[in-house]
């Protein structure tokens, strides 16, 4: 059974069909790429999967259950987490605190325990911080753990977004343009990091990216969108040669 399956997912904003009958399926452990020119509907796809938008028609099946229309916080609890194309960190919180917020959805203690500062709540907070520190170490952010996240350089902010998403212990991790604004060396490191996340944590990864070399070098399967339509699907080698994909990126031969 596939982990996530989009069945004819469609979303309309008024007269505009942003995503039209897109279907693809991710198996557990996949490194899956979602590519396409600007405005193709990639981020809209992410927003449908994470519950920001409800699809107009079609289904989104996660672990055998239809999750379309479920609110974002519930979807995060089911095990889908994401990063954002335009970085959305909790700016005035420290790096560590950002990751702790991510981990909090697996909490058990109640509100009263926090208000009275009972031992359950204290222990839980300490545990979350410990786990957060482990994650920060893994993503090479430990030395900036107490820095305000807004004060981090761009590349580190992107990595922090990944750390925060991983703290929710997702089964499926959605990365929206994780390599944007990085230099070639950073991109190389990020590739290794994403692969390690999949191998060590068993997370399935679905990522949007514009850098073809990055996607082709990392993803095992790719789906291509253009103007909200799915135009190709398959391993990198076939995608690279697909005439429709070439046309979408470079324009049609006259």
């Amino acid at each position: 059974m596939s982990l996530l399956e989009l069945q004819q997912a469609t979303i309309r904003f008024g007269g505009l069909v942003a995503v039209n009958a897109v279907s693809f399926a991710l198996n557990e452990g996949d490194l899956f790429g979602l590519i396409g020119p600007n405005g193709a509907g990639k981020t809209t796809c992410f927003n449908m999967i994470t519950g920001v938008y409800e699809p107009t028609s079609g289904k989104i099946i996660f672990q055998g259950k239809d999750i379309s229309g479920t609110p974002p916080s519930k979807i995060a609890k089911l095990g889908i987490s994401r990063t954002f194309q335009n970085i959305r960190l909790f700016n005035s919180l420290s790096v560590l605190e950002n990751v702790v917020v991510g981990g909090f959805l697996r909490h058990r203690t109640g509100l009263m325990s926090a208000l009275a500062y009972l031992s359950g709540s204290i222990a839980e907070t300490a545990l979350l911080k410990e786990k957060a520190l482990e994650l920060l170490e893994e993503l090479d952010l430990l030395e900036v753990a107490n820095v305000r996240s807004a004060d981090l350089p761009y590349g580190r902010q992107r990595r922090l977004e990944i750390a925060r998403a991983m703290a929710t212990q997702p089964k499926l991790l959605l990365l929206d343009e994780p390599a944007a604004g990085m230099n070639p060396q950073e991109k190389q490191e990020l590739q290794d990091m994403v692969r390690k996340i999949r191998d060590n944590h068993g997370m399935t990864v679905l990522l949007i990216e514009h850098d073809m070399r990055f996607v082709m070098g990392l993803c095992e399967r790719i789906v291509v969108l253009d103007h909200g339509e799915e135009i190709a699907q398959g391993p990198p080698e076939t995608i690279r040669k697909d005439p429709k994909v070439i046309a979408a990126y470079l324009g049609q031969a006259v």
Partner: protein
Amino acid sequence: MKFWTTRIVSFIIGIGGCFVIDLLSHRFVGSYEQRLVVLAGLYVTLAVSLNLINGITGQFSIGHAAFYQIGAYTAGYVSRTYITMGGHNPPAIPWLLGMMVLGAIAASIAGFVVGLPSLRLRGDYLAIVTLGFGEIIRILVQNTDALGGSYALDKIPKIQPIWLVWLLAIVCIAVCRNLIKTARGLTFLAVREDEVASSAMGVDVTSVKVTAFIIGSAFAGAAGALLAHYEGLITPTTFTMDVSFIILTMVVLGGTGSITGSAVAAIFLSYLPEYLRGLKTSAGEPLVVSGAAVIAGLAAVVVGVAFIKRILDSGRGTPRSRALKYLGIAVGVVILEPIISFALHPIKPLSSMSIEAGQLRMVIFAATLIVLMLLRPEGVFAHHEFSWSWVRKLFGKRPVPQAEVAA
């Protein structure tokens, strides 16, 4: 082990402090000053509870007086009906505690109702709704004869424990501080920072916002119950928009999000007008200043602010040289004021106008806020909080860095 020591010491200092305040205010000062001590305590509760909604959760609410009023009228009405009219005579303190709980429940129901639109509204729009809500409650009470209408709800039995007022303030501070120390509290801050990202991280934004409103308004309601029983008589004019704005000013002045800031600013701003009112000339008359002096004072402050702003923007110099410059500017402002005042003297309308110092409080409030917004928009305390490790640092002992990371 160290954790428990700190906790027990804080407990003892907190509760002991309440009784010390109570004792001191009963033994050494008159009823007027006692009333100030009570009002300061109530304002601390109000400011800190509003800070939970505004500063920590980031929901811009400016109708806090409404929750205060709901608590006061609910508790006042029930007390009056049961004790004054019904002739019952329950033990005072437990009864008052019960009334505080009742006021808190009534206000938190209202907080829940106001919290609901906050799920859809942001920023200015929410501010308008809460402002409207505050006015609706006040006008509703004003037109309800059973609640005394626009006159007063009187004959509320007087129960006046000053220690309980401050205990409520300390409990309110403790609850807010506990919350932000835990992972759950961080989710409140996360909602303030970015709602979309919070919900993507599994934070139930709806419940966080409503929870903040419920807790914040419950404390305001409990404070209202205390006020009703302290004064024995409450009128709708006690809860006008001014009160909401003064509480909001306390939060902003102290540093939005800082509990310490809210508490300190609440004490400061509730005493400032009384201090100004109490200013006397050497002959014992209320101090009167001329219009020229007021204008000169404002002008001198403007010049001072301009210079400080320049130093801040340039960002040069060691802390020491900067401190000296600030001192120089402060002295300059004090010297400049009489000079400008003298220069303005020939202008008749200004020099012949005389204002009592006590009436200047709104001018000083406004000027303080403007200066603050120019020089330190994040508030006096910004995001900083009082902590024992800070005290230890103050007395020269360096805290262990690892402990900071782990704690």
